[in-house]
């Protein structure tokens, strides 16, 4: 968009469902009751009002299509959110997930009637083991953070089973995503933060200092949230294990490592994967995802229930490991998501998956080199799947990372993650993924270059961005101060 164009007329947001509701309208038809009527429960048990909207089907479609068009999405736009792996999601996976043979199967059906589903889940467990080198998997966790919680409870159970009840602490590097300390705390652990060194790696001497007989485990994201591979990972593993602790790998960034290395060989004992990221299932605007957890053999007995096993007669069964941390979700995992990940692995194979990580890392490094003189690059090293830049230099023009992010919207790009990792001032965390073309990466670079020029020449234009979005910059402080969290009837 031209820099000096008049601000567009904002179309504004459509009226809420309840505000467009008209008594008597409806968008569905139901059969009349074909059985003799029984008396309803006594009136004091029944509700006297059911405040739901009344709209026709056409209005309903138009309303939600209008809403959909207010979003940027991978299907519409380059969406380089760091650590979120916003890659293209193949359409045929969605079609298969909707087949009655998968979608219309009840989780409590007799196992003999769900052998196809169980076989698929069993194979997926094996595929994930083949990719990580960790022999045992549970597909039960329903999201990445849910896998982390499972992993933390597994470590707690393992340490207790070994008489190590005093191990009540988890070490977390300062680059870690907020879920890591939150998951450790939810599992009842104390959290101790380990600083990074000047290269963005775990500070080994600080790690050694932090190790003691109270430490149950270390959580490390591989590659870390700076997009950097931990070159001392084997030394980290040695320190952890010699101290009697377990090594938890956060696999949120596994897209960088697909086929390149078995994380088991790096010393990881317990790992979760974010299937919605690496294995290309639609992020849904914030879920559903899936966060399977994988472990070494001696730890397998603590996996969350259920896991799929094959019997001698070749039939598949859901079983609870003997010292399981227990059930972590209502049923056996987010099957619809697991199915899509299965499709992805089967359609790419080992070589295709290796190609994914190669291109993802090449694309990230391409952006790193193109952008390092546009923005500052605090850790000037080869990166993995993402690169973290700093906009701190633009503070001289009173422009912040936030302003750059908002201005990118006007150029038709979804902004990167901002202000994370916490150790980088004015951070912009960019993950291109392998599914973006060189042309897109070049256009994105050109946009950022143009924005940085604008930051020097007309910074106010950035501070008031976005100019081309359905709404102007939103007042988040007001939202928190005066919570308006649901529809209420207008005052008469």
């Amino acid at each position: 968009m031209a820099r000096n164009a008049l601000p567009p007329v904002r179309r504004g947001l459509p009226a809420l469902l309840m505000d467009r509701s008209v008594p008597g309208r409806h968008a569905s038809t139901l059969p009349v009751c074909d059985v003799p009527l029984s008396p309803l429960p006594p009136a004091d048990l029944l509700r006297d009002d059911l405040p739901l909207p009344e709209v026709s089907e056409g209005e309903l479609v138009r309303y939600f299509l209008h809403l959909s068009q207010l979003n940027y999405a991978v299907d519409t736009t380059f969406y380089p959110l760091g650590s979120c792996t916003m890659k293209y999601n193949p359409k045929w996976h969605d079609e298969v997930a909707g087949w009655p043979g998968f979608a219309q199967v009840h989780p409590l059906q007799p196992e003999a009637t769900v052998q196809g589903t169980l076989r698929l889940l069993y194979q997926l467990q094996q595929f994930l083991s083949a990719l990580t080198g960790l022999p045992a998997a549970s597909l039960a966790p329903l999201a990445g953070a849910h896998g982390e919680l499972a992993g933390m409870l597994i470590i707690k159970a393992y340490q207790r089973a070994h008489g190590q009840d005093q191990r009540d602490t988890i070490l977390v590097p300062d680059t870690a995503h907020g879920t890591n300390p939150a998951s450790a705390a939810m599992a009842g652990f104390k959290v101790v933060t380990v600083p990074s060194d000047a290269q963005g790696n775990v500070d080994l001497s600080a790690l050694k200092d932090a190790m003691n007989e109270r430490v149950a485990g270390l959580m490390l994201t591989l590659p870390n949230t700076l997009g950097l591979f931990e070159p001392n990972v084997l030394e980290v593993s040695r320190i952890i294990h010699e101290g009697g602790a377990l090594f938890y790998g956060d696999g949120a960034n596994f897209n960088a490592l697909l086929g390149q290395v078995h994380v088991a060989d790096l010393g990881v004992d317990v790992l979760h994967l974010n299937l919605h990221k690496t294995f290309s299932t639609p992020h849904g605007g914030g879920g559903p995802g899936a966060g399977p957890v994988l472990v070494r053999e001696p730890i397998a007995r603590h996996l969350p229930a259920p896991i799929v096993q094959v019997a001698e007669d070749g039939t598949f069964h859901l079983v609870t490991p003997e010292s399981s941390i227990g059930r972590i979700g209502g049923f056996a995992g987010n099957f619809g998501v697991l199915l899509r990940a299965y499709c992805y692995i089967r359609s790419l194979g080992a070589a295709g998956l290796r190609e994914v990580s190669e291109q993802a890392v090449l694309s990230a490094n391409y952006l790193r080199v193109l952008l390092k003189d546009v923005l500052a690059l605090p850790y000037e090293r080869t990166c993995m799947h993402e690169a973290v830049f700093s906009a701190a230099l633009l503070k001289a023009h009173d422009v912040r990372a936030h302003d750059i992010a908002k201005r990118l919207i006007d150029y038709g790009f979804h902004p990167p993650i901002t202000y994370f990792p916490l150790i980088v001032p004015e951070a912009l965390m960019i993950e291109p993924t392998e599914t973006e073309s060189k042309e897109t990466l070049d256009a994105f670079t050109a946009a950022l270059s143009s924005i940085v020029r604008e930051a020097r020449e007309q910074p106010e234009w950035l501070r008031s961005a976005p100019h081309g979005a359905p709404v102007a910059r939103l007042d988040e402080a007001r939202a928190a101060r005066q919570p308006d969290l649901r529809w209420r009837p207008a005052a008469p």
Partner: protein
Amino acid sequence: MAAPSPYIPSTETDRRAMLATVGVESVADLFAEIPAALRNPRIVLPEPLSEMELKRELAALAAQNTNTDSALCFLGAGSYQHFVPAVVRALVSRGEFATAYTPYQPEVSQGTLQATYEFQSLVCQLTGMEVANSGMYDGATALAEAALMSARITGRQRVVVLEGVSSAYREVLATYASGPDLVIDPIAPGSLPLDEGAACLVVQQPNFFGYLEDLRRCAEAAHAVGALLVVSADPISLGLLRPPGHYGADIVVGEGQALGNAISFGGPYVGLFACRQEHLRQMPGRIAGRTLDAEGNPGFVLTLQTREQHIRRERATSNICTSEQLVGLACTIYLAALGRTGLRQVAELCYQKAHYAAARIAALPGWRLPMEGIFFQEFVAVGPRPPAEVNAALLRQGIIGGLDIDGRIPNGMLLCFSELHSRHDIDRLVAALDSVGGE
């Protein structure tokens, strides 16, 4: 290099140009920090296949399942089959919804955010509560989080659970409670009132066996000792029944799957989570709020984020990030499609079909309904033979019978009915049960 993936646009020419820009000879150079001896491990996976071939394979796998489109199914117990109008799937499938992510950048996520605000509004309206979040993983984890939240609010460590709460939900609660070492105390409804020291009383409505609990009495018992009342409510039943909020519930959770989502072997589902205004800042999960933009026009953002892991880290109310957004969107569209009269109709149809079936089954020789009270769409039937044998015989007639709860009620079977079951379907079940009883 393998056959090029349809999802990677880079050609060999692109790759060479990018490598030249980066200043390395080959992609392998970019992985040089991985210890050399560990690189490129042997990875054994099946050979890749095309979309067409894989669909054939997957169709063969799907054919090994008995699905509820081809067989009559009378299972419920936390996963419910209902009719889903086509409009729900058509809208949820839009890539603009499905391939977006958590609305960290609200100006380009107003669609997701406004839909979330609608979801929160409808959950409040359905449950009779003051505030709701944008969704949890599923009904079971929502219940577990409600118990943790009750412990935080009251500073107490004991969670009292009515025996009518689903055993799967109680298992998940036990897993979550093992973190902060909460004590779980299962009780029969007869053992109310509660002792002092309870953080909350957890009730399922209708309970696992399909019957209504006395929520008024539960609320009085909980509040008398300063405990919170946590109700796990089935959302379809709320089309007919007085909502838990009207009984004084402090936290209401529920499984949202029934509102427009497939049973899909247990997931993805969405947990509903609502509470009283005063507890808002202890609520887990994402919350969307309405605010103003710089030009004074309304817009939506994620709000109250100081509760959350990315700000508060180990002091967050929960580690949860997801809101099962797309599943919640289906709930929103489903509720809007059915509307005020439609949801009531669905609830009444479920109730009527179940009561017709109950009367017919109770009249069969050797069969009885062991429980007293009012049920909604599920009930327990006790037959003359173990449910495993009954179900095996039903399956031979193309019927997936009720859930085998022989372990809790000898020869007991939990049967579920909905608007999907025609009178003919129910008559078929009854005839099959009759013939099985006499075999």
